[in-house]
């Protein structure tokens, strides 16, 4: 049977925990709004970029860019994008559960975010490079990752590059998702989701023959890497949005739980206190009766 002092002490400690989780929830919700905004403003740009790419691809006559070359996949690279910090619910564990399914021997990992590199090191998988990105991912950070992936692909160290990240669906739902990154030939299939209503338009325009200035090779040579960089940036932004949302929800649950515990403990404390008073009163009256 704990004494009233023990219970008081526990209430105090739970209360201070709830203050911390409450503060983290506030911070996360403020950051979340910004991160979601950032992830969403890039949508029209990426839509148009995809459209241009699709049309360019449809217009290519017997020309192929090295980044589009599809090879039999003997070795593949996976870019694992995680958060830097924990305390964001099951976000990273869900992501890593997907990563575990990949074949250990034929997959090399490129990580972005500290949790991912820790995970790869812990499970002793092949790590080829690790990158970091800030709370507001910069385009240059995305460019570094995407450039590295392109080099892996072009030098033949990997025959395909995929990205595994937490897709932001809404504040309550984030989903680990694997998207193909290289070779680009697969791109039209992956963008179909975002691009679905535009698909008809693309089909209509494909009959038009585009003139390239100065020529296909130069334009595509610039366009393809740029679109990869941009795609990477978009992925980083989405990861951040997922992270902040997941953290906010996790912290809100933690705060709620702490409040519940405080409530239960307070009830128990009061009961005990009352029992003690009753007991004391009883003792006094008994003593009085014995004397009198």
């Amino acid at each position, binding site marked *: 049977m704990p004494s009233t002092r023990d219970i008081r002490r526990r209430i105090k400690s739970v209360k201070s925990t709830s203050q911390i989780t409450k503060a983290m929830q506030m911070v996360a919700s403020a950051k979340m709004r910004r991160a979601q905004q950032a992830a969403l403003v890039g949508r029209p740009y990426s839509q148009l*970029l995809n459209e241009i790419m699709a049309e360019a691809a449809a217009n290519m006559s017997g020309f192929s860019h090295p980044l589009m070359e599809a090879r039999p996949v003997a070795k593949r690279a996976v870019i694992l994008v995680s958060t830097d910090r924990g305390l964001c619910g099951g976000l990273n564990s869900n992501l890593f559960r997907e990563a575990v399914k990949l074949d250990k021997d034929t997959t090399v990992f490129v990580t972005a975010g500290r949790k991912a590199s820790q995970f790869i090191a812990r499970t002793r998988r092949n790590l080829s490079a690790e990158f970091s990105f800030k709370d507001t991912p910069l385009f240059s950070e995305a460019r570094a990752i995407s450039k590295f992936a392109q080099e892996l692909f072009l030098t033949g160290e990997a025959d395909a590059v995929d990205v595994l990240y937490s897709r932001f669906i809404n504040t309550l739902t984030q989903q680990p998702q694997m998207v193909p990154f290289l070779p680009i030939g697969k791109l039209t299939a992956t963008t179909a989701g975002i691009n679905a209503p535009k698909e008809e338009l693309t089909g209509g325009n494909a009959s038009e023959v585009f*003139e390239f200035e100065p020529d296909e090779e130069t334009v595509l040579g610039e366009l393809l890497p740029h679109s990869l960089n941009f795609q990477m940036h978009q992925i980083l932004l989405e990861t951040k949005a997922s992270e902040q949302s997941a953290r906010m929800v996790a912290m809100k649950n933690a705060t709620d739980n702490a409040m519940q515990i405080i409530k239960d403990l307070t009830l128990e404390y009061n009961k005990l206190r009352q029992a003690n008073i009753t007991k004391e009163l009883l003792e006094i009256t008994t003593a009085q009766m014995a004397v009198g």
Partner: protein
Amino acid sequence: MAVTLKLEIITPAAKVFSDDVEMVTLTGIDGEMGIYPTHMPLMTQLVAGEITARKDGQNIFLAVGDGFVQVTGERVAILTDMAVRAENIDEAKAEEARQHAVARLAEKLSEEESATVQASLAHATVQLKVKRLRQKQDSLVKM
């Protein structure tokens, strides 16, 4: 026959411009070009500089960064990393950004950093160029 073109200028941060215009002048990789409605389908690279759009006889000027242009008969889509309307350019701010970038370039930078600084330098320079050109032409018209 279409008499107007739909001009769309989109940056990663926002949709800067989306309107029907009569003519667009822009700087492509092979030099300046004017695009009228029913232009032949074309895809090219955009070089940082000035874009002029004519709408109802009025010229609208924008400063843009590097990017891509896609022209179809009725639409001009421009993807660029930066775009600002001439009247919205803050000259003092651009000048400050330019000097900051120049100062940063003097330091030792990694390849990635220097690419970023180069880009912001290019943006600031283009903004200043467009702004000053506008001011010069405005004062000529007034004289």
